[in-house]
Every structure is written in structure tokens, then in C-alpha cells.
């Protein structure tokens, strides 16, 4: 089955599938409910036997907010395909688990849950993988600041004994790149997060402003 063949077959079988803008691979947007069926079809009938990657994109102010993205690879034809589906519910996003189709999905989905807070329904053991158990935030969501939030140390006994906290990273004026908007005089490289620098002590009372930094860049 070549690329055009499986594309045609996929469209015939699942009329809800639409083309996804992509600069390189064949890519599709899938309706939420059909995602598992489409992935199973791609695995069994189109020969995409390897799940390379599962991740998500946070569109922040748009709805649907979260999109899960799968990259599949065919070890026989050496082709990739990208499949994306919007998650149900913007506040408590959900997506179906594919850990039973590919065991590789197990850790990838745990990571996506850890970073974005997307619950994969049907996952056998959905818990955090990179951050520690009980960490209260989802770091790759756009409202999470680069420096991080102050939280308790993992392990209540350790936290109590040491009295220490997990502190936000000292940004020291960084990271440096131009905001790419506004008048020329304001386009020098400047810090995104100046809450804590070499010259100014961190003000504990002044919490980091919630909400994402301005990541939308114009072409000017």
C-alpha cells in the first residue's frame, strides 16, 4: 500500500478525516471519537507498525485547547504519518489510550499526561513519569512560567525536616531574545521573566504573573 493508496483508503473508511497542514509528512486531523479506530487501521491495514512518538500541543486561548499528535512509522515502506486529534474538554482534557495497540504508547502517554495533564482513558498505569508523584502543575502548559512555581519538596518528611522548598529557577535576566514587536527602541533583547536577577532580590510576596509570556510573533 503506497502513500496515495492508504490515504484514499483512509478517507473512504473514515469520512471525518481531514488533511492537516504540514511541511513534510502526510498528516491528518481526526475526529476525537474515531482516533483509536483510525490508528488501528493505520497499524493493521496500512502497515504503520511503529509508534514513534506521542505528544500534545497546547493552543492556550483557542478551543479545542489541547491536540494530541501521533507519529507513526512503517518499517516496511519507511514512511511516516502524522495523526492529530483534538482532546475532549479544555479544562480536564481527555484522549483515548493506545497503549494496548502499541506498548510503546505506555510511556509516551504517561509523559504527555505528566506535561500537559491530558488523561488517557484506558491507560493501564497512568502516573507521572518525569516529574515526581504529587507535583501540582503541568509544566508544558502555556500558562506555566519558564522559571517554575515554588512547591514543596517531594516527600513530606524531607520537606518538614529541611524546611526547604523547590524554588523557581533564577532567570538572571534571561532568556534573551527580541520580542519582535513594538517600536525599534524596544526591540533589544530583553528578559521574559525579570522576577529575580543578580541585582534585585526575589520578592517572595510578589508572585510570578500567571499566564503565558507573549509567544505570538509577528513577521515584522
Amino acid at each position, binding site marked *: 500500500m503506497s502513500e496515495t493508496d492508504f490515504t484514499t483508503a483512509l478517507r473512504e473508511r473514515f469520512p471525518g478525516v481531514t488533511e492537516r497542514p504540514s511541511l*513534510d509528512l502526510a498528516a491528518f486531523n481526526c475526529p476525537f471519537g474515531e482516533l483509536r479506530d483510525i490508528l488501528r487501521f493505520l497499524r493493521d491495514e496500512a502497515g504503520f507498525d511503529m509508534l514513534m512518538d506521542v505528544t500534545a*500541543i497546547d493552543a492556550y486561548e483557542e478551543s479545542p485547547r489541547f491536540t494530541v499528535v501521533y507519529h507513526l512509522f512503517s*518499517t516496511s515502506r519507511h514512511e511516516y504519518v*502524522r495523526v492529530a486529534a483534538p482532546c475532549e474538554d479544555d479544562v480536564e482534557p481527555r484522549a483515548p489510550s493506545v497503549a494496548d495497540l502499541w*506498548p*510503546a504508547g505506555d510511556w509516551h502517554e504517561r509523559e504527555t499526561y505528566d506535561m500537559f495533564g491530558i488523561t488517557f482513558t484506558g491507560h493501564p498505569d497512568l502516573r507521572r513519569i518525569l516529574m515526581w508523584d504529587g507535583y501540582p502543575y503541568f509544566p508544558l502548559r502555556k500558562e506555566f512560567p519558564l522559571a517554575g512555581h515554588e512547591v514543596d519538596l517531594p516527600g513530606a518528611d524531607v520537606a518538614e525536616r529541611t524546611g526547604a522548598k523547590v524554588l523557581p529557577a533564577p532567570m538572571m535576566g534571561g*532568556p534573551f531574545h527580541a520580542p*519582535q514587536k513594538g517600536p525599534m527602541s524596544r*526591540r533589544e533583547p530583553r528578559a521574559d521573566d525579570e522576577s529575580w536577577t543578580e541585582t534585585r532580590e526575589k520578592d517572595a510576596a510578589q508572585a510570578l504573573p500567571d499566564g503565558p509570556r507573549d509567544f505570538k*510573533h509577528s513577521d515584522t
Partner: protein
Amino acid sequence: MAVKEVSIGDIGARAAQADEEFRGDKMLINMGPSHPATHGVLRLKVELDGETVTKCDPVIGYLHRGDEKIAENMTYNQFVPYTDRLDYIGPIHNNVTFALAVERLANLDVPPRCKAIRVICCELARLQSHLLGCGVYGMDTGALTVFMYSFTQREKLYTLMEQLTGARFTTSYTRIGGLMRDIPDGWLGNVRKVIDEMEPAIDEIDKLLSRNRIFYDRTVGVGVVSKEDAVAYGLTGPNLRASGVPLDLRKDKPYLGYDQYEFDVPIGTSGDCYDRWLVRLEEMRQSIGIIRQAIDKMPDGPYYAEEAKKIFAPPKSKVLTSMEELIQNFMIVTEGPQMPAGEVYFEAENPKGALGFYIVSKGGGVPYRMKIRSPSFCNLSILPKMMPGHMVADVPVILGSLDFVLGECDR
């Protein structure tokens, strides 16, 4: 004095009784995160029945630095040093893979000389990585000498890296659209000298271990991964090929003009620890062959894409003498290389497996989202499936044979 005679039969019966009493008692052992046999900060929660592993739960994340979050907050060139810290055993390959991924986003093709230099860099990184992988693998099985042999060779590679990039470990050599600088005079001769010396050294390493009875007994039939499992768990690189799947992205999805080089892709037959060792050894020899071809065919010309005025900052000599290039340099340094909106996924055959970058761009010099698909992460995910049934002494051997790096796994 009463003497109780103990017959062999009594001892046997008592031992059997003791065996019965202890049967079914499971012990939980915590290996790591700083256990010397775990190659970094990997923690394994291992459940044992006697000496047999019944369950294994890897705990990762001790080296999580949030590279993906950081990438969303800086320009593409600023992120190059962070890629050094992914697979820090062969850092220059990560630089190249990242540059290739972003260049695919920009739909930019670099000149032939740049590609050839990058190929040499990639293969040197593969040698670095496999020399370490094989050396410490020997240590894991109790053969300390191999480590000395391989690190003697590895040291020479670091000297080459220092001559090329100015740094031994953290190379940061690539820029989007080119390289930091051209190769220095006489460097190719040095590379040739080093690989000429390395070839017999690899043969020596081969002779030291491959037919060594102890090594053989400890690795053959241990940690077998079937073809189906390897594909289903998303294993890549030497670990996948040792299981008999002939997948090498250099052959199957050629980038950097790898289709112009002649080399073989070694594959294993049984997928055990011994096959993974053999595959890595042979890959080193193939890498040396590729480097020789690249040196022989090294084309002349520019080492960066000259037409990419909004992507590659021109060399310093031009910046200091020409107004136009000064402005170009200023814009690229402050705002980053200008990319179109869109998304790409690019994977290259890193020493450890397929390293992938999924970049979502909304235009401008900063990615909106960047996912790093790290081969070590996927290679480790098979541990819960692989470990049960093995003796606890096999655990370090299996870990050593998988040759992972936690910097890449945790990102």
C-alpha cells in the same frame, strides 16, 4: 558426649524445608538512582523472588531539566547548546540532528561541503558513543580492561572535537543553515590518523571480549528481545537492529547525502545482549569506512547556506566589514533565524537510535512547541517487559547492553 550423626539425607530434607518456608517471599530492591551499574541517574524498583526478578519498574526523571519548555522560550540557535546535553556521550550528533530538523522547517538545503563535514561529525559521534557503550558494557560484565582500551581511543576523539569546535564535550558546532566555522587546516589529516589507529584497537576490543568464555556465558541468551517486541516498543538504533530488524534511517530515509556512501547495516539474529555487543562493534567499523569516504570526497565550497540571509548569521570577518551583513547578523542574533509557520517531524539515526524533533512553528525565530523524541526513553520503556525472569546479576548486563543515556531520556 552424645554425638548426633547428620546424614546427607537430613541436610537435603532441611534445605528443602527451608526452601519451602521462603518460597513466595518477595523482596523489593531499589537499584539507583546513583548505583554505579545504572549508567546515570536511573532508578530501578526490582521485585525479587530469591535471585530471580519478577517485576521491574524503572523510575526516571532525575535529570529532567525541561528542555522542551526552554526551547519554547529561545531562538533556534540559542537552543543548540541545550542539544549537547541530550546525548552527552556523542553531543555533536544532536547538534546536527537539531539543525537538520530546523532546516527542514525552513526548507533549506545546505551546501555539499557542509553536509560532508556534518557526516564526519556524526560518525565521530557514533564512534564516541559506541566506544563508551562497549567499554562500560565490558565493565558491567566484569571485564575492566576493555574500558581502558576503548577510553584510550575515545580520548583521541575528544582531541579532534577540541580542534574542530574548541570544546571537548559540549561542542555546539552547528548553526541553523551551516556550521560555527569551517574545518581547521590539517584537521582531516588528524581524523584520518586517529581512525587509522582506531581500527586495530577495535579489533583488539573484539578479540578481548567476543570470544571470551565468561563474557559469552553472561550475555548469550540474556535479555532477548524478539523482533515483534522491538518494533512494538519503538526500539531504535543498535537495539532494534540486534533483534533482526534492518532499520537504519541513514539507509532508509537518507539525509546529509548518506545515500552516496557505501556502508553495511549490521543486524543481529537473536536479539540478546551478545548480539547488541556485536552490532555496536560492527557499526564502529562501518563508521570508520564512512569517515574515510567523506574525507576522500570532501568537496570545496562554502560551509554554510549563503542564500539563507534570514537564517544564517555571516562569518565575523564579513560582519565587521560590511554594513549589510552587520544588520543581518544583528537581526539573527536578536530575533533568531526566521522560520515559516508550519510543523515538521525529523528523525536522524543517532548513535543511540532515532532522535526526533517535532517542531511546531508560528513563524519567527522561536518555536511554538518542540517535542524531543529521545531514543533512550523508548529503549528504556521495554525494561518492565524484559527484566522479569532474569537473575539479579543479569540486570546490569541488560542495562549495559541497552546503552542508554539519561540526559536524553529525561530531557
